[in-house]
């Protein structure tokens, strides 16, 4: 190890030796990078399963009075699809996988604050997945990912397994939130002030705060449901003096912030990729950073916009409508800042950039339909129809999943040391972008026309549109195969990435790919913000390979 030259102080002077057994290295690993990969693989598997459920649903909906799936099977399919995508796929990938892989590297740390807890958090995920998918054996939950009582009280044992699964994920999220928060507050490299942090770290900080604070509410609500189902203590059953609306309040008090847990890290990913490939500073660094904080805080005061038809008094609806509209403003500021970053750049349209531009386009659309849903009178018509299904897929798929793929293409070389194929990447993008829009855009229209969500048969007037949607959804599913092939091909024969294939300036690119066990031989000293392209690198104590090696 080289002596640190000229640093003021080096907080983490000594390096632990790497683990020596297979189990410690790859199974019960406490290394944030290995844990990140574990998250990617596990959640990737759940993504495939939950995606197959979606394809089953689309097969059923291909014709109006189809009998391919029984109503019960169909209800189970969409409930597990939604629950799995939210809790087993998007949240773990954005926080557990990307947060773990990138955040410690970007702040110049050798690991997270509590590596053992980090390992523990991950190991709550596989049992949760087994419980959730295993619930099919006893009859999976049927009332959607929201599981409103009283109907969820009457369902079979699978619903109790659902409660336990989501409870475990909740505990995992809470712990990860705390862990990341402490890491970001305490373990930034010397010189990395708050306003020198990369924007992905800002996003992860706010996300961690939300996970830490909000998830406990979900756990409480779930425990209540489980206790009521098992022992009959009436929290929610109106027949025994409980309140079904109570569940809705607590559930959404968590689940609205959860929407931002699922999108803020994607915002962070976009904010990293844009400057790299535009070769210019991100426009409005502070506006983007602080708007994440604003979104995070306001997100705690909007939950009842999911309940405008639940019999709330108008004076209750009003503040929730106003707060929801207010969230739109910092979100708009971000979108405009990203577009302005493109202005005057020296832009390389690589695959990560394709996904970022796709994200900008689809997420903006989802944001706008969000405002349309915020307006109480309009929501009264749109609520619980396919309009909502369309909106949520535009933000969660068009936003989060496009963001995830952008991040995967961007950081894959850092994670594996090898490049993904650019041509396959672009084929993947175009297939996914076109079929995504073909799948979800028409849903807005049939929803407004009168098709409710969560139905396995529907009025024949929506038949043609639904057939078109189903075919598009199959193409969308197939587009994932291109990525899978690309990933395998890259692992077997991908080009060596080298340290910094994109010529980026954040700290993770200043070390070898994949990074060594201890990440940084010497803890770097940060002299200014990370996005000043054209200026010398703002770090000391790194032996960066500064040459920009074009990869195509």
């Amino acid at each position, binding site marked *: 190890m080289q002596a640190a030259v000229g640093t003021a102080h080096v907080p983490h002077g000594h390096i632990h030796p790497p683990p020596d057994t297979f189990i410690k290295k790859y199974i019960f690993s406490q290394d944030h990078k290995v844990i990140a990969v574990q998250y990617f693989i596990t959640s990737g598997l759940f993504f495939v399963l939950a995606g197959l459920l979606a394809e089953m649903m689309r097969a059923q909906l291909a014709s109006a009075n189809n*009998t391919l799936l029984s*109503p019960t099977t169909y*209800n189970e399919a969409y409930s597990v699809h939604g629950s799995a995508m939210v809790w087993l796929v998007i949240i773990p990938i954005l926080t557990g996988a990307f947060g773990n892989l990138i955040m410690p590297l970007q702040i110049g740390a050798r690991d997270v604050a509590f590596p053992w807890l980090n390992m523990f958090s991950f190991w709550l995920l596989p049992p949760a997945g087994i419980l959730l998918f295993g619930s099919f054996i006893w009859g999976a939950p049927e009332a959607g990912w929201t599981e*409103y009582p*009283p*109907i969820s009280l*009457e369902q079979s044992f699978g619903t109790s397994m659902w409660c336990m699964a989501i409870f475990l994920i909740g505990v995992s999220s809470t712990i990860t939130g705390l862990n990341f928060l402490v890491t970001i507050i305490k373990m930034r490299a010397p010189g990395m002030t708050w306003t020198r942090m990369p924007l992905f770290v800002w996003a992860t900080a706010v996300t961690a705060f939300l996970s830490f604070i909000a998830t406990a509410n979900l756990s409480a609500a779930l425990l209540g449901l489980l206790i009521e189902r098992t022992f009959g203590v009436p929290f929610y059953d*109106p*027949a025994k003096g409980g*309140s*079904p*609306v109570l569940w809705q309040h607590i559930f959404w008090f968590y689940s609205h912030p959860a929407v931002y847990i699922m999108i803020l890290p994607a915002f962070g990913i976009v904010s990293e990729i844009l400057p790299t490939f535009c*070769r*210019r*500073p991100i*426009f*409005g660094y502070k506006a983007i950073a602080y708007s994440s904080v604003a979104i995070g805080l306001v997100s705690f005061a909007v939950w009842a916009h999911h309940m405008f*038809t*639940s*019999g709330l*008094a*108008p004076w209750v609806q*009003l503040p929730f*409508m106003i707060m929801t*509209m207010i969230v739109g403003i910092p979100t*708009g500021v971000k*979108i*405009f800042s990203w577009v*302005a970053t*493109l*202005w*005057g*750049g*020296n*832009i390389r*349209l690589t695959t990560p950039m394709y996904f970022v*531009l796709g994200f*900008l*386009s689809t997420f*903006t*659309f989802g944001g706008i339909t969000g*405002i349309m849903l915020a307006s*109480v*009178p309009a929501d*009264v*018509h749109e*609520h*619980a*129809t396919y309009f909502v299904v369309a909106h949520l897929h535009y933000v969660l798929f068009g936003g989060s999943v496009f963001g995830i793929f952008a991040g995967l293409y961007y950081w894959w070389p850092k994670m594996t040391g090898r490049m993904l194929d650019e041509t396959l990447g672009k084929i993947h993008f175009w297939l996914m972008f076109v079929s995504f829009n073909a799948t979800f855009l028409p849903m807005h229209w049939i929803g407004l*026309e009168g098709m*409710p*969500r*969560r*139905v396995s*048969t*529907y*009025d024949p007037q929506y038949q043609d549109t639904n057939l078109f949607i189903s075919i598009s959804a199959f193409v969308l599913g197939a587009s994932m195969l291109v990525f899978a092939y690309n990933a395998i091909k890259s692992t077997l024969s991908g080009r060596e990435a080298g340290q910094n294939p994109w010529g980026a300036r954040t700290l993770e690119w200043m070390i070898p790919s994949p990074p060594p066990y201890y990440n940084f031989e010497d803890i770097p000293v940060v002299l200014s913000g990370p996005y000043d*392209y*054209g200026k010398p690198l703002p770090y000391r104590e790194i032996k960066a390979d500064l040459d*920009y090696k074009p990869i195509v």
Partner: protein
Amino acid sequence: MNTGQQEHKLDAGFWRATIVMGVISALGMWGVVVFPIERYLPEAAGIAVQIDWLFKFMAFFSVPILVYVNGYMIYFAVRYRNRKGQPLDQPGSSIHDHKALEFWWTAIPSVLMLVLGILSYVLIPQYYTARAASADSVTIEAIGHQFSWEFRYPGLRDPVPDELHLPINVPVTIDSTSTDVIHSFWVPAFRMKQDMIPGMVVPMTFTPTEIGKYEIVCTEFCGVGHSGMRDRFVYVQSRSDFDAWYAAEKTKQAHAPTQLTAAVLASGDAGAGQQLFNARCTTCHNAAPFDQRKVGPGLANLFHDPAHPKLLSGKAPTPADVADILEHGLSGSMGQMPNAQLNGLSAKDIADLVAYLKTLK
């Protein structure tokens, strides 16, 4: 390699693109204004017209936002792409803040939100707080069941299942609730929706303004028959038609047998039974052989199926025993067959249904 910072100005190309996008936006906004929503979904209540205008207001301003965000994104990505011969690491513009620009793109959306907020708020109280109070207005109790609706009119002895009759141009208040799980009562043509929550009674008030027949749809998942909770209708009628229907319903109820006697059972009308079957039973049953099940078994040869000589209740398939199942329901391995109250069946309805089932082969 690096050949130094480039600084760019807003040039003619930028303004040309801006104008093109302006033209596209204007076309889109014009399209929003003239779009005939009512051709796709009738506006059958006063509030529907207002909500559609609110929706158009939102769509109107969404068009330029979408066009400019996507348009500038594509224009910049193409205009500033790395060109052949241009060093890959040549830095782009170093401008990373512009106070005036940031002010305006915060201020303009804020003002739009404010206007939208005010417009929305003006509409809210109309249907949640106000109760229909004029002399000729109607108040109806609507109750959601798995998987039917029940409407109680003042002055009628029995509830009217799955059919809502309303007089035109008078305010109506619907007090909605449920006796089992949460349902949601939605009439798309009225743009009105209200969750029916057990233990709560929530009113909504509106004025139907167009004579016609409009679908009622359940939009809250309520169980295995949820998808079938559609194809039930609201009938908006002229005052005289409404009064005639009300009088006829009253007489019908007065004459309807309250007890399912053998005489009543024998006098069932298969035609009326078929209509009832299609409205109330096809959520869960096919008029097909036993094996073609939906939720419950197919009912085509209920009375003469050699493979199933007995009913699921264990009794022989006599009319009286089938009527017994319809009256009291049945719970078995396939699930729950609702009783007459939940299915909204009167004694005469049961007789009609049995008569119809007997005709099936």
